């Protein structure tokens, strides 16, 4: 009972967080802000996946969360490298 309630609360909060990320993504003002917003969005999504996994009582989502964490970091790194140097692989 308490678990399911807290899961719903967590889902709602994560949804709000994602929407806020989106807001930042939309308004910028800078592309660096947007990259950051995307990165944060990734992290919130990881949380969302884990909470969903608990909600559905399954571990199937956890691999996705794992890979998402890896991808999120590398994606952000790629965007940053581009902003810094333009050339990604040098």
């Amino acid at each position, binding site marked *: 009972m308490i678990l399911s309630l807290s899961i719903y609360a967590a*889902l709602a909060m994560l*949804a709000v967080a*994602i*929407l806020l990320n*989106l807001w930042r*993504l*939309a308004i910028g003002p800078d*592309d660096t802000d*947007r*990259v950051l917003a*995307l990165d944060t*969005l*990734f992290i919130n*999504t990881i949380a*969302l*996946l884990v909470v*969903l996994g608990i909600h559905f009582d399954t571990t*199937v*989502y956890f*691999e*996705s969360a*794992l*890979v*998402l964490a*890896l*991808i999120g*970091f*590398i*994606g952000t*790194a*790629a*965007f*940053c*490298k*581009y*902003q*810094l*140097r*333009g*050339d*990604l*692989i*040098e």
Partner: protein
Amino acid sequence: MPIAAIILLPLLGAALPPLVARHGRPAPAWAAALVTSAALAITLWLTPQVLAGGEIHSHRDWIPLLGLSLSFRLDGLALLFVLLITGIGLLVFLYAFYYLPAKDGLGRFYALLLLFQGAMLGIVLSDNLLLLLIFWELTSLSSFLLIAYNPQTRVARQGARMALAITAGGGLALLAGFLLLGAIVGSFELSVVLASGDLVREHPLHLPALLLILAGAFTKSAQFPFHFWLPNAMSAPTPVSAYLHSATMVKAGVFLLARLFPVFSGTETWFYLVGGVGMFTLLFGAYIAIFKHDLKGLLAYSTISHLGLITFLFGLGTPLGAVAALFHVGNHAVFKASLFMAAGIIDHETGTRDMRQINGLWRFMPYTATLAMVAAAAMAGVPLLNGFLSKEMFFAETVHTDWLGPLNWLIPTAATLAGIFAVAYSMRFIHDVFFNGAPIDLPRTPHEPPFWMKIPVAVLVAACLLIGIVPAQTVRPILDVGVDSLLGFSPDFSLAIWHGLSLPFLMSLIALLGGLALYSQRQRLFAAHDRYFPRTSGAAAFQYTVLRVRQLANDLIARIDNESLRRYVAWLIGTTIVLAATPLLLGDFHLAGERAPTPLDGIAATILLVLAVATLATVRVRRQRLRALIVISLVGLMVTLTFIHFSAPDLALTQLSVELITTVLMLLALFFLPGDPALSVSRWRHRRDLTLAAVAGLGTAIVAFALMTRTTPSISDYFLAFSKPFGGGQNVVNVILVDFRGLDTLGEITVLAIAATAIVALLWRLRLPIRAGDPTGRPWADDRHPLIMAAMSRPLLPLALTVAVFILLRGHNSPGGGFIAGLVAAVGLILQLLASGLAWTEARLRVSYFALVGVGLLLAAATGLGSLAFDRPFLTSATLHPHVSILGDLELASALAFDIGVFLVVLGTVMLILEGLGRLNRPGAANMSPRGED
């Protein structure tokens, strides 16, 4: 399967001559001769059996569903042809060795000849109509290559193209005819078809089937009006002409007439079509041959004429007509091959083939002249030579024909006239070449050719004499069984040289004397021909048609093609919309199906909303390219979440990794794509694009909705039920990929490998200007490889690789598998390239990604073949179940090896592409790049 070996020997042996070509010129010739001799030896070994009246059959299913089988038969008819093809083939091989210029390595020549020979043997030995057709087309193709053996000359290319267009076109007609015939009879097996003559002749489809099949036979045998490709094919090297236009290629058409003789012959249609075309071709070819100044041109038209004669004899539909036709097939092959060879020698020695220049060669090459004169006399039908015998039978048959009723006398008259022409052109070949004064302006002083070059001619001429003098002892047995396989019995016929003073003999006499008289008046005849004979030719009409068709195509293209991709795409989309919308608008279409809709939930709604908004945002910010990339990543993330939400964890993992790799790819490209200044787009075009996109989007949405709300029967239940017992895995998606549909996956990773290769090729030596700063003008940072980033990245590689291996091993039972593992591993490597650079990574990771792709493909294919070794279908999996701690129950299926193959290909492909892009503007192979000072 000794019969199949007769065909396979030359077909497979065709690989031999090019392989041995570097051991000198004789090697390919010996190889070809060896192969053909082996085929001939097998035939000779089987001959007694056939002569004793036994047909030899062999049968093996190929594609039973289509009625296609590997059935072969060696009966009398086939035996006659096989002996001609291999025997004359050997002589041609010997001749060609001396004929072709010394700088020609001969590897390609003999390979093509063997290929052609194999195809030809296939035609005569096939016991299945479809199989026969395959070989039929193979002869068209290989003869194309042979005629265009010297593709540098225009005439060779044109002649080859014409021959291919006509004979392959006829092949298509033949295919249609065979399909009809098969439909009538209910089988494509020749044995069945041959026994169903009555059924075929009474069937309503009889006429169309006959017409189509005859179109195939007539095009191949150069019957009027398809004859013109043959003279144009004379641009081939003479050994090729000697082979193709005496014993093979053109004989395929008459072989088909003989083969299907029991099925179609004897009807009035058959007589008028086959007999009529044959008679006309006989007269026409013989007449034209007189006027050809080119030696080979004369022989070409003479060939057309003799093929007409054979066709006519088959057209008569009488037993003795069939005997005479078969007999003449052999006789014509023998004397015509020797004549072509003689013409080749003359061409070789004098440097020209123009009979107006070539005169009085008797003094220069008496041996060759003697041989050629005997062969030409056989062609004319002089007694004591083989041509006389079959011609006499031909005359006898024309006398006995009564298809035309009161006009019956026309046929023997026409035959005699053709005989006169034949004597005239044979006379011209003898007199105009070897006598008739002295040569005029020959490019070379002629003398006798090398000894061995004359041997094939001599052998053939000896055969002419032998058959002509003692026919009963030489060809009678083969002729008997050959006719037997056509008619089912051996008719009574006599092969004596002297039949008494009969009407046929009188006709022969008239032909001889008339021909001599005609030739003596040749100057007047030539003048009359030049003045009155119409100047049109089939070849010109053909060329004209080709030219017009091409012009028409060019005009059409010029009209509809303005070389604008956007216009193509717009048309494509528009057409698709119309095609897709028509059934929806016209039919009785209900939007929603019967399936109960899934209830709305907040999370999914949010995901899809963000998806839609981000898509529109991508379109909007497309000009701020970096921003567009950020937004499109968001779209990708939302797609991933959709997959996760609707129970597709495998897809989510794949989409995620591809997402990142695509982003890196685009960022890499972005560096070199600053963008052009925006062009103004017309308002009309803008509206058109918007409308097209909106309508297509709406249409797709409607179809998607309709599809999602319906339940359709699916084969997935089978996959779900048998995934565990057959595939040995619990993750059904993965089992489908590596087991049930493993062949598809093998194809798909091959596509990946091809794409990677193409990309590497496109990147080859690509040079692009480098931008000094980002679009806002801000200069790039100095630090190539920020320390913190590098330090953070390095530990992630082992982590990523561990995750990859984990996902790979577990893939059969849980979400994962080779595709995802490959992508994740690639992601880990890419991070190192980003953070530490090419040089750093290369110094530590010495692996060729090409090798990775290759090994992966081989492994996947080998796994599939492995199951064949256990006598199971390709790509059947075998399983083992070792229990490994931590990882849990591991399915060590052979599917795992396949999945590892997939893993390697995916990893290699991704790395080839991204590293190739990263290497742009840098010296390729060097380990240390000049910019990579770390």
